[in-house]
Protein backbone atom coordinates (compact mmCIF):
# COMPACT_ATOMS: atom_id res chain seq x y z
CA UNK A 1 0.00 0.00 0.00
CA UNK A 2 1.52 3.35 -0.99
CA UNK A 3 1.90 6.01 1.66
CA UNK A 4 0.87 9.67 1.31
CA UNK A 5 2.80 12.30 3.28
CA UNK A 6 1.58 15.87 3.66
CA UNK A 7 4.21 18.51 2.98
CA UNK A 8 5.47 21.27 0.73
CA UNK A 9 7.41 20.44 -2.39
CA UNK A 10 10.35 22.83 -2.76
CA UNK A 11 12.05 23.18 -6.13
CA UNK A 12 15.27 25.21 -6.25
CA UNK A 13 18.88 25.33 -7.48
CA UNK A 14 21.28 22.73 -6.11
CA UNK A 15 23.24 25.54 -4.42
CA UNK A 16 20.16 26.75 -2.58
CA UNK A 17 19.26 23.19 -1.71
CA UNK A 18 22.62 22.62 -0.06
CA UNK A 19 22.05 25.72 2.10
CA UNK A 20 18.64 24.37 3.09
CA UNK A 21 20.23 21.02 4.00
CA UNK A 22 22.81 22.88 6.10
CA UNK A 23 20.07 24.79 7.94
CA UNK A 24 18.22 21.52 8.48
CA UNK A 25 21.29 19.66 9.72
CA UNK A 26 21.23 21.66 12.97
CA UNK A 27 17.97 20.31 14.34
CA UNK A 28 16.28 18.38 11.48
CA UNK A 29 13.17 20.48 11.90
CA UNK A 30 12.42 21.16 8.26
CA UNK A 31 13.07 18.41 5.73
CA UNK A 32 10.66 15.50 5.40
CA UNK A 33 12.11 13.82 2.35
CA UNK A 34 15.21 14.56 0.29
CA UNK A 35 14.22 13.82 -3.29
CA UNK A 36 17.02 14.87 -5.64
CA UNK A 37 19.53 17.65 -6.34
CA UNK A 38 16.93 20.34 -6.79
CA UNK A 39 13.83 19.02 -5.02
CA UNK A 40 12.85 18.17 -1.50
CA UNK A 41 9.74 17.97 0.65
CA UNK A 42 9.56 20.01 3.85
CA UNK A 43 7.05 20.29 6.67
CA UNK A 44 4.10 22.48 5.78
CA UNK A 45 4.18 24.72 8.85
CA UNK A 46 7.91 25.38 8.59
CA UNK A 47 7.92 26.99 5.13
CA UNK A 48 7.87 30.62 6.29
CA UNK A 49 10.53 29.98 8.91
CA UNK A 50 12.71 28.27 6.35
CA UNK A 51 12.30 31.20 3.95
CA UNK A 52 13.41 33.56 6.72
CA UNK A 53 16.43 31.44 7.63
CA UNK A 54 17.36 31.13 3.97
CA UNK A 55 17.22 34.90 3.48
CA UNK A 56 19.45 35.38 6.49
CA UNK A 57 21.95 32.84 5.21
CA UNK A 58 21.98 34.46 1.77
CA UNK A 59 22.50 37.92 3.21
CA UNK A 60 25.72 36.74 4.82
CA UNK A 61 27.10 35.28 1.63
CA UNK A 62 25.95 37.86 -0.89
CA UNK A 63 26.93 41.47 -1.39
CA UNK A 64 24.14 43.26 -3.27
CA UNK A 65 25.64 45.38 -6.05
CA UNK A 66 25.07 49.05 -5.35
CA UNK A 67 22.98 51.04 -7.77
CA UNK A 68 24.98 53.20 -10.07
CA UNK A 69 23.87 56.58 -11.26
CA UNK A 70 22.40 59.48 -9.39
CA UNK A 71 18.78 60.38 -8.86
Amino acid at each position, binding site marked *: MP*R*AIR*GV*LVECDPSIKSIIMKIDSEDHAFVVED*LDDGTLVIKENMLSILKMRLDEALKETQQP*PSDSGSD
Partner: protein
Amino acid sequence: MSLPSLSSREYLERLPGTTFRRLYQQPSTALAIFRRMLPHLAKTFAMALLYMTKPLPLADLDLWVRPGSKRQRDEALSLLNRLHMVTITAPSRDDPQAVSLTKAFSSSLRLALTGGGDHQSFGVPANDLETANVDVQFLDDFARAQWEGILHYIVSNVGDGMRQAGEGPTAGVKQLLEAGHMVTRQKRSGGGITQAGFSFLLQEVNAQVWTLLLLWIENAEKMGMDSVEVLSFLFMLGSLELGRAYSTTILTASQKEMLTHLVDFGLAYIPPSTPNQFFPTRLATTLTSDASALRSVAAGFDNALSAGAGTAGFIIIETNYRLYAYTSSPLQIAVLSLFTKLTTRYPNMVSGRITRESIYRAISHGITSEQVISYLSTHAHPQLLKVATAKGAPVLPPTVVDQIRLWQIENERMKATPGFLFKDFESQKEYDGCVKYADEIGVLVWKNDGKRMFFVNRMEQLRDYIKSRKVK
Protein backbone atom coordinates in the same frame (compact mmCIF):
# COMPACT_ATOMS: atom_id res chain seq x y z
CA MET B 1 -10.23 32.33 -17.46
CA SER B 2 -9.43 35.32 -15.38
CA LEU B 3 -8.33 35.32 -11.81
CA PRO B 4 -11.60 36.20 -10.05
CA SER B 5 -13.39 33.07 -11.14
CA LEU B 6 -10.50 31.09 -9.75
CA SER B 7 -10.69 32.55 -6.28
CA SER B 8 -14.47 32.46 -6.14
CA ARG B 9 -14.42 28.93 -7.53
CA GLU B 10 -11.95 27.88 -4.84
CA TYR B 11 -14.31 29.27 -2.25
CA LEU B 12 -17.25 27.38 -3.73
CA GLU B 13 -15.32 24.13 -3.89
CA ARG B 14 -14.77 24.27 -0.17
CA LEU B 15 -18.51 24.28 0.55
CA PRO B 16 -20.15 21.01 1.61
CA GLY B 17 -22.55 19.15 -0.66
CA THR B 18 -25.62 20.06 1.36
CA THR B 19 -24.90 23.75 0.82
CA PHE B 20 -24.74 23.12 -2.91
CA ARG B 21 -28.06 21.31 -2.91
CA ARG B 22 -29.67 24.33 -1.29
CA LEU B 23 -27.84 26.77 -3.56
CA TYR B 24 -29.03 24.98 -6.67
CA GLN B 25 -32.65 25.38 -5.54
CA GLN B 26 -32.42 28.83 -7.10
CA PRO B 27 -32.39 28.84 -10.91
CA SER B 28 -30.38 32.08 -10.96
CA THR B 29 -27.66 30.50 -8.84
CA ALA B 30 -27.48 27.38 -10.99
CA LEU B 31 -27.21 29.52 -14.12
CA ALA B 32 -24.63 31.88 -12.63
CA ILE B 33 -22.33 29.10 -11.45
CA PHE B 34 -22.82 27.31 -14.74
CA ARG B 35 -21.82 30.26 -16.90
CA ARG B 36 -19.14 31.74 -14.67
CA MET B 37 -17.22 28.82 -13.21
CA LEU B 38 -17.08 26.21 -15.96
CA PRO B 39 -14.68 25.83 -18.89
CA HIS B 40 -16.32 25.28 -22.27
CA LEU B 41 -15.93 21.50 -22.32
CA ALA B 42 -17.59 21.17 -18.91
CA LYS B 43 -20.43 23.37 -20.17
CA THR B 44 -20.83 21.11 -23.19
CA PHE B 45 -21.07 18.05 -20.97
CA ALA B 46 -23.62 19.69 -18.68
CA MET B 47 -25.75 20.84 -21.61
CA ALA B 48 -25.68 17.42 -23.23
CA LEU B 49 -26.67 15.72 -19.99
CA LEU B 50 -29.38 18.25 -19.20
CA TYR B 51 -32.30 16.46 -20.82
CA MET B 52 -31.14 12.90 -20.34
CA THR B 53 -33.47 10.86 -18.22
CA LYS B 54 -31.05 8.08 -17.41
CA PRO B 55 -27.43 8.23 -16.29
CA LEU B 56 -24.99 8.14 -19.18
CA PRO B 57 -22.30 5.44 -19.05
CA LEU B 58 -18.85 7.03 -18.90
CA ALA B 59 -17.79 4.87 -21.83
CA ASP B 60 -20.39 6.62 -24.02
CA LEU B 61 -19.22 10.01 -22.84
CA ASP B 62 -15.72 9.09 -23.89
CA LEU B 63 -16.95 8.75 -27.47
CA TRP B 64 -17.59 12.52 -27.54
CA VAL B 65 -14.00 13.26 -26.66
CA ARG B 66 -11.03 12.86 -28.94
CA PRO B 67 -8.59 10.27 -27.61
CA GLY B 68 -5.90 12.96 -27.32
CA SER B 69 -8.04 15.15 -25.07
CA LYS B 70 -8.52 12.70 -22.24
CA ARG B 71 -6.85 15.09 -19.81
CA GLN B 72 -9.31 17.92 -20.59
CA ARG B 73 -12.21 15.51 -20.25
CA ASP B 74 -11.03 14.34 -16.84
CA GLU B 75 -10.44 17.87 -15.65
CA ALA B 76 -13.89 18.96 -16.78
CA LEU B 77 -15.57 15.97 -15.13
CA SER B 78 -13.65 16.40 -11.93
CA LEU B 79 -14.63 20.08 -11.75
CA LEU B 80 -18.29 19.25 -12.39
CA ASN B 81 -18.03 16.71 -9.62
CA ARG B 82 -16.39 19.13 -7.18
CA LEU B 83 -19.13 21.70 -7.81
CA HIS B 84 -21.69 18.95 -7.17
CA MET B 85 -23.27 19.36 -10.59
CA VAL B 86 -22.87 15.71 -11.58
CA THR B 87 -22.85 12.45 -9.73
CA ILE B 88 -20.68 9.63 -10.95
CA THR B 89 -21.55 6.17 -9.76
CA ALA B 90 -18.84 4.31 -7.92
CA PRO B 91 -16.97 1.81 -10.04
CA SER B 92 -18.02 -1.77 -9.49
CA ARG B 93 -17.58 -5.01 -11.35
CA ASP B 94 -21.20 -5.43 -12.45
CA ASP B 95 -22.23 -1.98 -13.67
CA PRO B 96 -20.07 0.35 -15.70
CA GLN B 97 -19.53 3.85 -14.23
CA ALA B 98 -22.25 6.28 -15.28
CA VAL B 99 -22.65 10.03 -14.98
CA SER B 100 -25.76 12.16 -14.48
CA LEU B 101 -26.56 15.71 -13.44
CA THR B 102 -27.65 16.16 -9.84
CA LYS B 103 -31.38 16.60 -9.54
CA ALA B 104 -31.48 20.08 -8.01
CA PHE B 105 -28.98 21.45 -10.49
CA SER B 106 -30.59 20.02 -13.60
CA SER B 107 -34.12 21.13 -12.74
CA SER B 108 -32.94 24.63 -11.80
CA LEU B 109 -30.85 25.01 -14.92
CA ARG B 110 -33.79 23.89 -17.08
CA LEU B 111 -35.99 26.47 -15.38
CA ALA B 112 -33.35 29.15 -15.87
CA LEU B 113 -32.83 28.39 -19.55
CA THR B 114 -36.35 27.73 -20.70
CA GLY B 115 -38.33 29.78 -18.20
CA GLY B 116 -41.36 28.83 -16.21
CA GLY B 117 -41.98 28.38 -12.54
CA ASP B 118 -42.75 30.92 -9.88
CA HIS B 119 -39.33 31.10 -8.25
CA GLN B 120 -38.70 34.88 -8.49
CA SER B 121 -35.02 34.12 -8.29
CA PHE B 122 -34.11 36.60 -11.01
CA GLY B 123 -35.36 39.50 -8.95
CA VAL B 124 -38.70 41.22 -9.08
CA PRO B 125 -38.76 44.58 -10.85
CA ALA B 126 -40.46 47.27 -8.82
CA ASN B 127 -43.82 48.19 -10.35
CA ASP B 128 -44.38 51.33 -8.29
CA LEU B 129 -45.28 54.30 -10.40
CA GLU B 130 -43.03 56.63 -8.47
CA THR B 131 -39.64 55.24 -9.37
CA ALA B 132 -36.77 57.43 -8.34
CA ASN B 133 -35.10 59.36 -11.10
CA VAL B 134 -31.94 57.27 -11.40
CA ASP B 135 -30.10 56.75 -14.67
CA VAL B 136 -27.15 54.60 -15.63
CA GLN B 137 -24.74 57.51 -15.51
CA PHE B 138 -25.73 58.27 -11.93
CA LEU B 139 -25.31 54.63 -10.91
CA ASP B 140 -21.86 54.49 -12.50
CA ASP B 141 -20.84 57.66 -10.68
CA PHE B 142 -22.16 56.31 -7.40
CA ALA B 143 -20.40 52.97 -7.80
CA ARG B 144 -17.18 54.68 -8.79
CA ALA B 145 -17.29 57.06 -5.84
CA GLN B 146 -17.90 54.25 -3.35
CA TRP B 147 -15.27 51.95 -4.83
CA GLU B 148 -12.62 54.66 -5.18
CA GLY B 149 -13.31 55.58 -1.58
CA ILE B 150 -12.38 52.05 -0.54
CA LEU B 151 -9.25 51.99 -2.71
CA HIS B 152 -8.21 55.42 -1.41
CA TYR B 153 -8.61 54.19 2.12
CA ILE B 154 -6.31 51.24 1.45
CA VAL B 155 -3.55 53.26 -0.20
CA SER B 156 -3.84 56.27 2.05
CA ASN B 157 -2.51 53.99 4.74
CA VAL B 158 0.81 54.00 2.85
CA GLY B 159 1.68 57.66 3.07
CA ASP B 160 0.50 59.54 6.09
CA GLY B 161 0.78 62.81 4.20
CA MET B 162 -2.08 61.85 1.91
CA ARG B 163 -4.58 61.15 4.64
CA GLN B 164 -7.82 62.99 4.18
CA ALA B 165 -9.90 63.29 7.27
CA GLY B 166 -13.62 62.71 7.19
CA GLU B 167 -13.64 60.80 3.90
CA GLY B 168 -13.49 57.18 2.95
CA PRO B 169 -15.69 54.17 3.42
CA THR B 170 -17.95 53.41 6.35
CA ALA B 171 -16.70 51.87 9.58
CA GLY B 172 -18.05 48.46 8.56
CA VAL B 173 -15.96 48.42 5.40
CA LYS B 174 -12.88 49.54 7.32
CA GLN B 175 -13.35 46.71 9.79
CA LEU B 176 -13.77 44.29 6.94
CA LEU B 177 -10.53 45.41 5.28
CA GLU B 178 -8.78 44.95 8.58
CA ALA B 179 -10.28 41.50 9.14
CA GLY B 180 -9.10 40.54 5.67
CA HIS B 181 -5.58 41.73 6.51
CA MET B 182 -5.64 44.31 3.74
CA VAL B 183 -4.65 46.99 6.24
CA THR B 184 -3.54 46.93 9.83
CA ARG B 185 -3.91 49.55 12.49
CA GLN B 186 -0.42 48.98 13.82
CA LYS B 187 1.66 51.95 12.83
CA ARG B 188 5.06 50.38 12.67
CA SER B 189 7.32 49.74 9.70
CA GLY B 190 5.90 52.59 7.68
CA GLY B 191 2.19 52.21 7.31
CA GLY B 192 -0.73 49.91 7.65
CA ILE B 193 -1.18 48.36 4.21
CA THR B 194 -0.32 44.68 3.97
CA GLN B 195 0.81 42.25 1.33
CA ALA B 196 -2.77 41.21 0.64
CA GLY B 197 -3.71 44.85 0.28
CA PHE B 198 -0.98 45.44 -2.29
CA SER B 199 -1.97 42.60 -4.54
CA PHE B 200 -5.61 43.61 -4.07
CA LEU B 201 -4.85 47.07 -5.46
CA LEU B 202 -3.30 45.77 -8.66
CA GLN B 203 -6.19 43.43 -9.48
CA GLU B 204 -8.92 44.02 -12.02
CA VAL B 205 -12.00 45.71 -10.61
CA ASN B 206 -14.12 42.59 -10.90
CA ALA B 207 -11.50 40.57 -9.05
CA GLN B 208 -11.40 43.21 -6.35
CA VAL B 209 -15.15 43.07 -5.94
CA TRP B 210 -15.06 39.28 -5.59
CA THR B 211 -12.20 39.38 -3.12
CA LEU B 212 -14.05 41.83 -0.94
CA LEU B 213 -17.35 39.95 -1.22
CA LEU B 214 -15.77 36.62 -0.29
CA LEU B 215 -14.19 38.30 2.71
CA TRP B 216 -17.55 39.67 3.63
CA ILE B 217 -19.27 36.30 3.28
CA GLU B 218 -16.73 34.68 5.58
CA ASN B 219 -17.40 37.39 8.12
CA ALA B 220 -21.15 37.12 7.66
CA GLU B 221 -20.97 33.45 8.58
CA LYS B 222 -19.40 34.44 11.87
CA MET B 223 -22.22 36.92 12.46
CA GLY B 224 -24.67 34.06 12.07
CA MET B 225 -25.97 34.86 8.60
CA ASP B 226 -26.82 31.99 6.29
CA SER B 227 -24.17 31.65 3.60
CA VAL B 228 -26.65 30.03 1.22
CA GLU B 229 -28.96 33.05 1.32
CA VAL B 230 -26.03 35.40 0.96
CA LEU B 231 -24.59 33.54 -2.00
CA SER B 232 -27.89 33.14 -3.82
CA PHE B 233 -28.49 36.85 -3.41
CA LEU B 234 -25.11 37.61 -4.97
CA PHE B 235 -25.77 35.29 -7.88
CA MET B 236 -29.17 36.86 -8.33
CA LEU B 237 -27.58 40.33 -8.47
CA GLY B 238 -25.44 39.11 -11.34
CA SER B 239 -28.53 38.43 -13.44
CA LEU B 240 -30.24 41.77 -12.86
CA GLU B 241 -30.45 44.57 -15.38
CA LEU B 242 -28.48 47.76 -15.00
CA GLY B 243 -30.55 50.91 -14.55
CA ARG B 244 -33.71 49.14 -13.40
CA ALA B 245 -35.36 49.33 -10.02
CA TYR B 246 -35.97 46.08 -8.17
CA SER B 247 -38.24 45.43 -5.26
CA THR B 248 -36.84 44.52 -1.86
CA THR B 249 -40.06 42.90 -0.68
CA ILE B 250 -39.15 39.35 -1.73
CA LEU B 251 -35.80 39.47 0.06
CA THR B 252 -35.27 37.65 3.34
CA ALA B 253 -34.20 39.48 6.47
CA SER B 254 -30.53 38.66 6.13
CA GLN B 255 -30.59 39.57 2.46
CA LYS B 256 -32.01 42.97 3.35
CA GLU B 257 -29.27 43.43 5.88
CA MET B 258 -26.77 42.43 3.26
CA LEU B 259 -28.17 45.04 0.89
CA THR B 260 -27.07 47.83 3.21
CA HIS B 261 -23.52 46.50 3.07
CA LEU B 262 -23.69 46.27 -0.71
CA VAL B 263 -24.61 49.94 -0.77
CA ASP B 264 -21.40 50.62 1.18
CA PHE B 265 -19.42 48.73 -1.45
CA GLY B 266 -21.15 50.54 -4.28
CA LEU B 267 -22.78 47.40 -5.65
CA ALA B 268 -26.30 48.60 -5.13
CA TYR B 269 -28.08 51.90 -4.65
CA ILE B 270 -31.20 52.56 -2.61
CA PRO B 271 -32.91 55.83 -3.47
CA PRO B 272 -33.79 57.77 -0.30
CA SER B 273 -37.28 58.55 -1.61
CA THR B 274 -38.26 54.91 -2.21
CA PRO B 275 -36.47 52.73 0.34
CA ASN B 276 -38.23 49.54 -0.78
CA GLN B 277 -36.48 49.62 -4.13
CA PHE B 278 -32.89 49.05 -5.06
CA PHE B 279 -30.81 49.56 -8.17
CA PRO B 280 -27.92 47.21 -8.93
CA THR B 281 -24.85 49.04 -10.25
CA ARG B 282 -22.43 47.95 -12.93
CA LEU B 283 -20.20 46.41 -10.27
CA ALA B 284 -23.02 44.03 -9.33
CA THR B 285 -24.44 43.17 -12.75
CA THR B 286 -21.03 42.11 -14.07
CA LEU B 287 -20.34 39.84 -11.08
CA THR B 288 -21.13 36.57 -12.82
CA SER B 289 -20.77 37.44 -16.48
CA ASP B 290 -18.94 35.17 -18.80
CA ALA B 291 -15.21 35.91 -18.88
CA SER B 292 -15.15 37.47 -22.32
CA ALA B 293 -18.28 39.54 -21.84
CA LEU B 294 -16.87 40.69 -18.57
CA ARG B 295 -13.75 42.07 -20.17
CA SER B 296 -15.61 44.63 -22.19
CA VAL B 297 -17.88 45.72 -19.40
CA ALA B 298 -15.03 45.83 -16.92
CA ALA B 299 -13.02 47.81 -19.45
CA GLY B 300 -15.87 50.27 -19.74
CA PHE B 301 -15.86 50.63 -16.01
CA ASP B 302 -12.09 50.95 -15.89
CA ASN B 303 -12.34 53.80 -18.34
CA ALA B 304 -14.91 55.40 -16.13
CA LEU B 305 -12.57 54.94 -13.19
CA SER B 306 -9.61 56.53 -14.89
CA ALA B 307 -11.70 59.30 -16.42
CA GLY B 308 -12.10 60.75 -12.97
CA ALA B 309 -8.36 60.81 -12.39
CA GLY B 310 -7.11 62.17 -15.71
CA THR B 311 -6.11 60.55 -18.98
CA ALA B 312 -5.58 56.81 -19.23
CA GLY B 313 -1.87 56.83 -20.01
CA PHE B 314 0.41 58.98 -17.91
CA ILE B 315 3.64 57.07 -17.34
CA ILE B 316 6.86 57.66 -19.28
CA ILE B 317 9.73 55.32 -18.55
CA GLU B 318 13.19 55.74 -20.05
CA THR B 319 15.88 53.18 -20.76
CA ASN B 320 17.86 54.46 -17.76
CA TYR B 321 15.03 53.35 -15.41
CA ARG B 322 13.85 56.91 -14.84
CA LEU B 323 10.12 57.25 -14.56
CA TYR B 324 7.93 60.31 -15.06
CA ALA B 325 4.24 60.12 -14.25
CA TYR B 326 1.93 62.93 -15.26
CA THR B 327 -0.64 62.61 -12.53
CA SER B 328 -1.79 64.33 -9.41
CA SER B 329 -4.09 61.55 -8.23
CA PRO B 330 -3.06 60.34 -4.77
CA LEU B 331 -4.32 56.86 -5.68
CA GLN B 332 -2.04 56.56 -8.70
CA ILE B 333 0.94 58.08 -6.94
CA ALA B 334 0.48 55.68 -4.07
CA VAL B 335 0.30 52.71 -6.43
CA LEU B 336 3.46 53.90 -8.22
CA SER B 337 5.27 54.28 -4.93
CA LEU B 338 4.72 50.58 -4.31
CA PHE B 339 7.43 49.69 -6.82
CA THR B 340 9.19 52.96 -7.67
CA LYS B 341 11.63 55.12 -5.75
CA LEU B 342 9.82 58.42 -6.15
CA THR B 343 12.02 61.46 -5.59
CA THR B 344 10.29 64.62 -6.75
CA ARG B 345 6.69 65.73 -6.84
CA TYR B 346 5.52 68.63 -8.98
CA PRO B 347 1.96 69.97 -9.17
CA ASN B 348 1.06 67.78 -12.14
CA MET B 349 3.82 65.18 -12.18
CA VAL B 350 6.00 62.91 -10.07
CA SER B 351 9.39 61.56 -11.05
CA GLY B 352 11.52 58.77 -9.74
CA ARG B 353 13.51 55.68 -10.61
CA ILE B 354 12.81 51.99 -10.71
CA THR B 355 15.62 50.46 -8.70
CA ARG B 356 16.60 47.02 -7.58
CA GLU B 357 15.59 47.90 -4.03
CA SER B 358 12.20 49.29 -5.03
CA ILE B 359 11.40 46.15 -7.03
CA TYR B 360 12.63 43.94 -4.18
CA ARG B 361 10.35 45.79 -1.83
CA ALA B 362 7.40 45.29 -4.16
CA ILE B 363 8.16 41.59 -4.50
CA SER B 364 8.48 41.14 -0.77
CA HIS B 365 4.99 42.63 -0.54
CA GLY B 366 3.72 39.96 -2.92
CA ILE B 367 3.61 41.97 -6.15
CA THR B 368 5.01 40.06 -9.13
CA SER B 369 7.22 41.50 -11.82
CA GLU B 370 4.51 40.73 -14.38
CA GLN B 371 2.04 42.84 -12.42
CA VAL B 372 4.48 45.75 -12.39
CA ILE B 373 5.19 45.42 -16.10
CA SER B 374 1.53 45.15 -17.03
CA TYR B 375 0.71 48.16 -14.86
CA LEU B 376 3.43 50.19 -16.58
CA SER B 377 2.40 49.16 -20.08
CA THR B 378 -1.34 49.67 -19.58
CA HIS B 379 -0.72 53.13 -18.18
CA ALA B 380 2.00 54.11 -20.65
CA HIS B 381 1.88 57.69 -21.85
CA PRO B 382 0.44 58.22 -25.38
CA GLN B 383 3.83 59.58 -26.41
CA LEU B 384 5.45 56.22 -25.63
CA LEU B 385 2.75 54.43 -27.63
CA LYS B 386 3.22 56.78 -30.60
CA VAL B 387 6.97 56.22 -30.72
CA ALA B 388 6.48 52.48 -30.28
CA THR B 389 4.02 52.16 -33.18
CA ALA B 390 6.15 54.40 -35.41
CA LYS B 391 9.22 52.23 -34.89
CA GLY B 392 7.36 48.95 -34.50
CA ALA B 393 9.10 48.53 -31.15
CA PRO B 394 7.64 47.40 -27.81
CA VAL B 395 6.01 50.10 -25.68
CA LEU B 396 8.29 49.76 -22.68
CA PRO B 397 12.08 49.76 -23.08
CA PRO B 398 13.05 46.07 -23.32
CA THR B 399 16.07 46.59 -21.06
CA VAL B 400 13.87 47.80 -18.24
CA VAL B 401 11.32 45.02 -18.70
CA ASP B 402 14.02 42.34 -18.75
CA GLN B 403 15.75 43.81 -15.73
CA ILE B 404 12.53 43.86 -13.71
CA ARG B 405 12.03 40.18 -14.54
CA LEU B 406 15.64 39.37 -13.66
CA TRP B 407 15.33 41.12 -10.32
CA GLN B 408 12.36 38.94 -9.52
CA ILE B 409 14.13 35.70 -10.51
CA GLU B 410 17.11 36.76 -8.41
CA ASN B 411 14.84 36.96 -5.44
CA GLU B 412 12.88 33.77 -6.01
CA ARG B 413 15.23 31.15 -4.69
CA MET B 414 12.76 28.37 -4.34
CA LYS B 415 9.36 27.37 -5.63
CA ALA B 416 7.08 25.90 -2.99
CA THR B 417 3.97 23.79 -3.70
CA PRO B 418 1.91 22.40 -0.82
CA GLY B 419 0.50 18.93 -1.34
CA PHE B 420 1.20 15.27 -0.74
CA LEU B 421 4.13 12.97 -1.47
CA PHE B 422 3.25 9.42 -2.48
CA LYS B 423 5.85 6.73 -1.92
CA ASP B 424 6.44 3.07 -1.01
CA PHE B 425 4.65 1.57 -3.99
CA GLU B 426 4.68 -2.19 -4.01
CA SER B 427 5.18 -2.69 -7.73
CA GLN B 428 6.19 -0.73 -10.79
CA LYS B 429 2.76 -1.43 -12.26
CA GLU B 430 0.97 0.11 -9.31
CA TYR B 431 3.23 3.15 -9.47
CA ASP B 432 2.75 3.57 -13.21
CA GLY B 433 -1.03 3.41 -12.91
CA CYS B 434 -1.17 5.98 -10.11
CA VAL B 435 1.20 8.40 -11.82
CA LYS B 436 -0.73 8.15 -15.05
CA TYR B 437 -4.00 8.79 -13.28
CA ALA B 438 -2.59 11.72 -11.30
CA ASP B 439 -1.27 13.25 -14.52
CA GLU B 440 -4.61 12.82 -16.26
CA ILE B 441 -6.64 14.56 -13.58
CA GLY B 442 -4.06 17.34 -13.59
CA VAL B 443 -2.75 17.15 -10.02
CA LEU B 444 0.76 15.78 -10.68
CA VAL B 445 3.50 18.25 -9.75
CA TRP B 446 6.68 16.18 -9.66
CA LYS B 447 7.65 12.56 -10.17
CA ASN B 448 10.72 10.39 -10.04
CA ASP B 449 10.29 7.07 -11.80
CA GLY B 450 13.54 5.66 -10.42
CA LYS B 451 12.56 6.18 -6.80
CA ARG B 452 8.87 5.45 -7.45
CA MET B 453 7.72 8.62 -5.76
CA PHE B 454 5.50 11.43 -6.96
CA PHE B 455 4.01 14.63 -5.58
CA VAL B 456 0.44 15.88 -6.09
CA ASN B 457 -1.27 19.10 -5.02
CA ARG B 458 -4.65 17.47 -4.39
CA MET B 459 -5.26 13.93 -3.21
CA GLU B 460 -8.96 13.19 -2.66
CA GLN B 461 -9.63 11.74 -6.09
CA LEU B 462 -6.33 9.90 -6.17
CA ARG B 463 -7.08 8.30 -2.81
CA ASP B 464 -10.41 7.05 -4.12
CA TYR B 465 -8.65 5.76 -7.21
CA ILE B 466 -6.09 3.83 -5.16
CA LYS B 467 -8.84 2.38 -3.01
CA SER B 468 -10.84 1.32 -6.06
CA ARG B 469 -7.74 -0.42 -7.43
CA LYS B 470 -7.47 -2.36 -4.19
CA VAL B 471 -11.04 -3.57 -4.62
CA LYS B 472 -10.41 -5.03 -8.04
